[in-house]
C-alpha cells in the first residue's frame, strides 16, 4: 500500500508541471497584455512609454524564457508580484496578512464553499435516499420536480429576487458585502451575528443548484444498490427495512460520493464570479475574473497552480478513501 501511494505521489509531479506549462501558454495565447489596461485607447500614451511598460513587466522576453523565470520562482514557492498597478505580491492578494483572517479572500471563499457543501450533503443525501426507496411515490415526484426547477433556476436571478425580498421588502437580511458598516463598533456576539446574517443568502444561493445534482446522483446510486442480490438476501434474513436500507444499502451507495467529494476539493477555493459579483463579496471568484480580464499573468497562474495542486490532492484523497471504503480496491 505504501508503494502504491508513493507511486501515485510521484506520478503527480510531472502531471503538475504539465498543467502549469499548458496553463501558462494558454493564457499567453489570449489576445492582449497586462499593459493594455494602461495603454489601450489612451491617447496620452506614447509608443516609447508603452515599450517601457512592457519591459518593466518582462513582457519583451520570449514566452519560453518567461515560463522559465516563472518556474524558477515557483519552485521556491514565490508566485511573484501582480501585474496590476499596485504591484503587490500575488500571495498577499489571495491571503492578505494585513487583514483579519475572516476577511482574507481565500478564507472567505473557502468558508462559503464549505458551508454550502455541508448544506448540500445534509439535504441532498436524505432526499436522494427517500426518493430511491419511495420510487415513483408522490414524495419522489414532488422532489424530482422541485429539484429540476432548482437546477434550472439561474443563480443570479434567484439571488436578486431573494435580495429584493429579504433585504428590501422584509428588511430581515443585509443586501450585500460581508459585514455592516458599523461592524467595528459591535460586541463580539454582535459581530458573529452580523457576519452570519451576511452569509445566509450567499450560502443559500450557492447551495441551491448543488442540491439538485447531488440528490439525483444519490437517488440513482441507491436505486442501483437496492436492486442487488445482497439486499434481497438481507431482506430474506428478515432484517428490518431501516437496517436493510441504512446499514447494507447506504454504505454501498455512498461509494460514488467519495469520488464526488474528491472532485470538489479544488472547487473549495474557486469562488463563483456571479454570486460574488451580486453580493459584493470579496472572494476568489472576483479576484480570478479580474485577473483574467486584466491579463494579470502572475495572479492567474498562482490561482491556477493552487487549483491544480488541490485537484491532484483531491484525486489522491479520493483514491485513498476508496481504499479504506472498498475492499475490492484494497485487494488489487
Amino acid at each position, binding site marked *: 500500500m505504501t508503494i502504491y501511494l508513493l507511486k501515485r505521489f510521484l506520478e503527480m509531479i510531472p502531471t503538475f508541471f504539465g498543467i502549469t506549462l499548458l496553463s501558462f501558454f494558454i493564457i499567453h495565447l*489570449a*489576445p*492582449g497584455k497586462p499593459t*493594455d*489596461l*494602461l*495603454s*489601450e*485607447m*489612451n*491617447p*496620452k*500614451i*506614447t*509608443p516609447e*512609454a*508603452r515599450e*517601457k*511598460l512592457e519591459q*518593466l*513587466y518582462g513582457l519583451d522576453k520570449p514566452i519560453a524564457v518567461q515560463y522559465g523565470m516563472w518556474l524558477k520562482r515557483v519552485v521556491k514557492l514565490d508566485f511573484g508580484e501582480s501585474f*496590476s*498597478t*499596485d*504591484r503587490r505580491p500575488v500571495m498577499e*492578494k489571495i491571503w*492578505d496578512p494585513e*487583514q483579519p483572517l475572516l*476577511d482574507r*479572500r481565500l478564507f472567505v471563499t473557502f468558508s462559503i464553499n464549505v458551508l454550502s457543501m455541508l448544506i448540500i450533503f445534509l439535504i441532498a443525501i436524505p432526499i436522494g435516499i427517500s426518493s430511491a426507496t419511495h420510487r415513483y411515490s408522490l414524495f419522489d415526484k414532488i422532489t424530482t420536480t422541485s429539484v429540476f426547477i432548482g437546477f434550472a433556476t439561474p443563480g443570479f436571478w434567484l439571488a*436578486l429576487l431573494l*435580495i*429584493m425580498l429579504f*433585504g*428590501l421588502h422584509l*428588511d430581515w437580511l443585509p*443586501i*450585500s*458585502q*460581508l*459585514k455592516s*458598516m458599523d461592524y467595528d463598533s459591535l460586541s463580539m456576539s454582535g459581530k458573529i451575528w452580523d457576519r452570519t446574517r451576511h452569509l445566509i443568502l450567499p450560502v443559500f444561493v450557492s447551495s441551491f443548484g448543488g442540491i439538485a445534482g447531488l440528490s439525483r446522483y444519490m437517488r440513482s446510486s441507491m436505486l442501483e444498490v437496492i436492486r442487488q442480490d445482497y439486499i434481497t438476501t438481507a431482506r430474506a434474513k428478515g432484517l428490518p427495512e431501516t437496517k436493510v436500507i441504512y446499514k447494507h444499502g447506504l454504505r454501498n451507495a455512498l461509494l460514488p460520493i467519495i469520488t464526488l467529494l474528491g472532485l470538489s476539493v479544488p472547487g473549495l477555493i474557486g469562488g463563483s464570479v456571479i454570486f*460574488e*459579483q*451580486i*453580493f*459584493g463579496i*470579496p472572494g476568489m471568484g*472576483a*479576484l480570478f*475574473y*479580474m485577473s483574467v*480580464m486584466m*491579463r494579470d499573468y502572475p495572479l492567474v497562474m498562482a490561482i491556477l497552480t493552487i487549483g491544480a495542486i488541490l485537484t491532484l490532492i483531491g484525486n489522491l484523497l479520493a483514491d485513498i478513501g476508496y481504499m479504506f471504503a472498498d475492499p475490492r480496491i484494497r485487494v488489487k
Partner: protein
Amino acid sequence: MKRVIVTFLLLSVIVFTNNEGMAAETSGMASGALEQPAYGDAIVAALSGNPSVLIPMLAGDSASHDVAGLIFNGLVKYDTDLSVTGDLAESWEISPDGLVITFHLKKGIKWTDGVEFTADDVMFGYKTIIDEKTATPYKGDYLQVKKAEVLDRYTFRVAYDKPFAPALTTWGSLVVLPKHLLEGKDITKSKFARNPVGMGPYKLKKWAAGQEVVLDSNRDYFEGRPFIDRYIYRIIPDPATQFIELRAGGLDRMGLTPIQYKKQTDNEFFRKNFRKFRYPVPSYTYMGFNLRHPWFKDKRVRQAIAYAIDKEEIVDVVLFGLGRPATGPYVPGTWYYNPDVRQYEYDINKAQRLLKEAGWSDTDNNGILDKDGKPFEFTILTNMGNNLRKNTATIIQWRLRKIGINVRIRLLEWSAFINEFIDKRRFEMVILGWSLGFEPDQYDIWHSSKTGEKEFNFVSYSNPDVDELLEKGRRTFDIEKRKKAYYRIQEILADELPYIFLYVPDATPVVHSRFKGIKPTTIGIGYNLHEWYVPKNLQRYSIKP
C-alpha cells in the same frame, strides 16, 4: 461583466476631474433657506471595483482615481465655466511666446502629516513621473517639458520647446507628491500607494481591500474644512445590487443607468428621498469607418449612411432620451463647441440619391444595393458587455437595411477587439466611444501622422487642413484663436464624416436629499464636495473621530 468593461473604457478618461461631471437638470427637493450648514454625518458611495493604488500617476482604473481624487490636489483645475483656475497654485504666468509657464503656489498649505507643501513637492512629482522606472501611462505630456526648475519655495517654472496649449491642464492632480515622505523610495513598491498622504478635502482612514474605503475629512483643508465628516466607499460590483442598496438606504449616491433614471426612480419614494441630476459628460459614441476600405473612401457613401441613421431615435430608444445627438467630437455647452455645423437629419431620399451618385444600385432586385457585382454588405464591430453600443448597432442595422445595405453585427471581448481588429485595421465599421475630458486638443485622434499601429487615428483619416488646424490649436494659449481652429475642424469633420458622431450621453447621478449645498454646473456636482452639508436634524450617522 458589464462593469468591468465599463471600467476599462473609463481608463481613457483624462484624469483631471474627480470623474464628476456637470449638471443641468435637477429634480426633487430644493434646499430650504432655514437649513443651516453643519459639520458631521457621512456620505456613502459605491465603487464597482477595488481600487488598486492611490497614487494618481500610477493608477489606471477609475476606482483608484475616484478615491485618489479626494486625497490629492493639482496645481490647476477646471472652474465651473470650464476655464482653468488655480488649485494649489495661486496664479501663473505664461510667457508671451507661450513657451514658459511660471506657477506661484499658495502659501501655508500643509500635507495632512503637517509638513508644508512647497515647489519642491511639484518638482519631485514631475521627476517621478518622467523617471524611467515609474510605470505610468501619463508620461507623454511631461516628456514635452524641456526644463523644470524651482525658483523659490513657492515658485515653479516649466519651459517647453514649442508652445503647447494643453500643457497648462496637465499640471492637475497627477504630479504633486510629498517629497519628504517619498524621496529615495521606489513609489511603485512603497507603502505610500496603500496609505497615501495628500492635502485634499479627505484623508484615508481605512482601506479594507475588496470591501470598503473610509476617508475622514481633512480639517485643515485649504479651501475650508469639509462639512461632511466622513466619505465611505463600499465596493459593490453589481449595478443592480447597488441600486437595491440605494433604495434600502445603504448608499447615498450612485450613477443611475438610463432605465433606472427614467423608470425605476420615477416614484414618490425617490422624489421624496433623493435628488437626481442630469448633465452631458465630455464623451461621445461614434460609428467609425475604415477609410482605407474602397467603399468608405467615397464621402458620398459616408454621408448617405449618415442620412439613413436617425440619431434622435437612437437617443430616445437606447438612452431613454438621456443624452443628445452628437454633431462632432465636442460636447454642447463647452466654449469650443460649434453648434452651426452641417447636420444630417434622417432623410432616406437624400441617402438613396447619394448612394446612386456613388454608383450603388439594386441591379438584381434582391433588395440589396450592389456595385460591380458586389452586394453592399459589411460588419459593425463593437465590444461585448456594452449594451448601449449593442442596441445602437441593432438600430443602425435595421435602418440601413431600409436603404438596401445589409449589416452584420459582431461583439468582441475588449482586448481581442483592440489587439486583433483595431490595431490590425481588420474592420469595416466600428462603434466605440471617446471620453476625453474638457481639453479640446484631439491631435492624436485626427492628425494624419497618428495612423500607425496602436495609434488612435485608426480610421486613417487624413486632411491637410485639419492637420494644420490641430497644430494651430495646440500651439497657442489664445482662447479666441483656439476657438476659431476648433470651430473650423468641426465644420470639416461634419462635412467629411470620418466618423458618424452618434450621441453624447448624460451623466445621471442621484444623491440622497439630506445633502444640501450641491450646486450643479457645467463641470458637474462633485467640484464643491467640501461645501456639501447635512443640517443637524437630518444627520444620519454620528462620527466619532
